């Protein structure tokens, strides 16, 4: 479904990704793990088009994404739910959700997806007309995911959905991610919490300072002594 080949990305003069290659197949959950500054967020940012790679290719079902404008990439079904929630604080909950569906023409589908978001996160229905800035951190993360769903993702890029949230909320978020997989959404997940990520994912890539250090089935990585030592606390 998604095929990334030898991706090089720079932030100014900093060489952030030094030849990352990865594959995501339809229906999978693939995790990107690694420490701070390994290039996880950079990878997602390049996939959604906000950062342009210096070289390398990104193909989504045979289509080259490296030249496509960001909003066109979203319309292909690659939806990026960014790190730190990034909901629009001065828009209401419903406006945040509506905005993410604004490029779609199927009114009935939008109504269905809105109902689905409210079913997954009932609190959002209650907070419908509140400014998103007044929501708690956990609620904002729910809104961020709900908003991504309103764009009808086929491939969802999820960046640190559990960051800074209370354990109960984290559990809820991970439950929703599993539900999404059952509904046929393919997910590329960036997580600091490597333990959770490997438990949920089918396969994983371990990034280190801009390289793919190793990759494989999630359960195999979880048992890999080197990965254990570096990312799972022994």
């Amino acid at each position, binding site marked *: 479904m998604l095929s990334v080949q030898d991706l090089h990305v720079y932030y100014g003069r900093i060489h952030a990704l030094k030849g990352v290659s990865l594959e995501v197949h339809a229906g999978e959950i693939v995790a990107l793990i690694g420490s701070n500054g390994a290039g996880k967020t950079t990878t997602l940012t390049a996939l959604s088009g906000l950062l342009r790679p210096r070289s390398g290719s990104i193909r989504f079902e045979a289509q080259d994404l490296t030249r496509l*404008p960001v909003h066109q990439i979203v319309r292909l079904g690659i939806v990026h739910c960014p790190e730190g929630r990034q909901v629009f604080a001065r*828009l209401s909950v419903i406006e945040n959700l509506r*905005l993410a569906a*604004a490029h779609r023409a199927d009114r009935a589908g939008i109504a269905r997806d809105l109902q689905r978001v409210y079913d997954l996160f009932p609190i959002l229905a209650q907070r419908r007309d509140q400014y998103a800035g007044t929501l708690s951190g956990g609620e904002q993360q729910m809104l961020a995911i709900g908003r991504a769903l309103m764009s009808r993702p086929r491939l969802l890029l999820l960046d640190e959905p559990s960051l800074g949230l209370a354990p109960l909320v984290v559990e809820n978020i991970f439950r929703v991610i599993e539900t999404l997989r059952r509904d046929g959404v393919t997910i590329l997940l960036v997580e600091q919490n490597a333990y959770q990520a490997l438990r949920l994912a089918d396969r994983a890539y371990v990034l280190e300072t801009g390289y793919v250090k190793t990759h494989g089935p999630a359960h195999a990585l979880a048992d890999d002594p080197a990965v254990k030592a570096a990312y799972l606390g022994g």
Partner: protein
Amino acid sequence: MLTPSYLIQQFINALNMGSIYALVAIGLTVVYGILRLINFAHGDMMTVGAYLALAVLSSLALPAWTALLIPVFVVAALGVLIERLAYRPLRGAPEVAMLITSLAVSSLIENGATMTLTAQPRPVRLPAELVQRVDALGINFAVMDGVIVALAVALMIALSLFVRRTTIGIAMRACSENVRVTQLMGIDVNRVIAVAFAISAGLAAVAGVLWSGKFGIVDPFMGFVPGLKAFVAAVIGGIGNIPGAMLGGYLLGFAEVFFVAFMPPEVSGYRDAFVFVLLLVVLLVRPSGLLGTREVNRA
């Protein structure tokens, strides 16, 4: 001196000036909100609008209302064109690059108008029905005064509804929070920015037509001072904030008109200085303006 009719006259005057400042300030604030651009060429959109209205009124056999409508659409299109040619290539460059470019655009329009139309001010002759005075609500005023206020208020209500209710309005507000994330919603931000420039320039054209109608004169530099005042109004209200621009516009109109009305003649010449003192005082007390929120650093 301070007869009731003098006070009422000053009040009407202040409402007029405030309405025009507010229209111009909204346009500045809408563009600033999204691009963080202080558009120095904004006042010149007033000038272009006023010249177009003059051309329609004096040489074309068209009804008077087209002297408003034609400038609005032509100047809105001009605003979109300027963004496309001058500002868009600088997107992502340091903000000051765009600001300097807008100074260049301003200078181009002012000097272009001087070269082709001469710096000689031209009189604007309003249609007779706008000049006549009427008595309403116990007040005597010129029809034009009423038109200015009514039109400005109607446009402000329409804009508020547009920004609240429509998808593109929501997208404009989203862009003013974070352009990058707005793109991630599948929104074509170039379209949103084009709409913002069309609205901004269109409102400035209205303001220019009204201004030239009120003062009866058009010249290549007429947009400069009201443009500057509108910038002050937008900052007083909290730049980037649309209700703030409206509030700031009226506040400035009233402050300026009443300063001139109540101060002795030897002081009232300092009206422009007074406007800037007012700005300084407001910013000392509320650094982000009256309705502004503190700027958070954007990624």
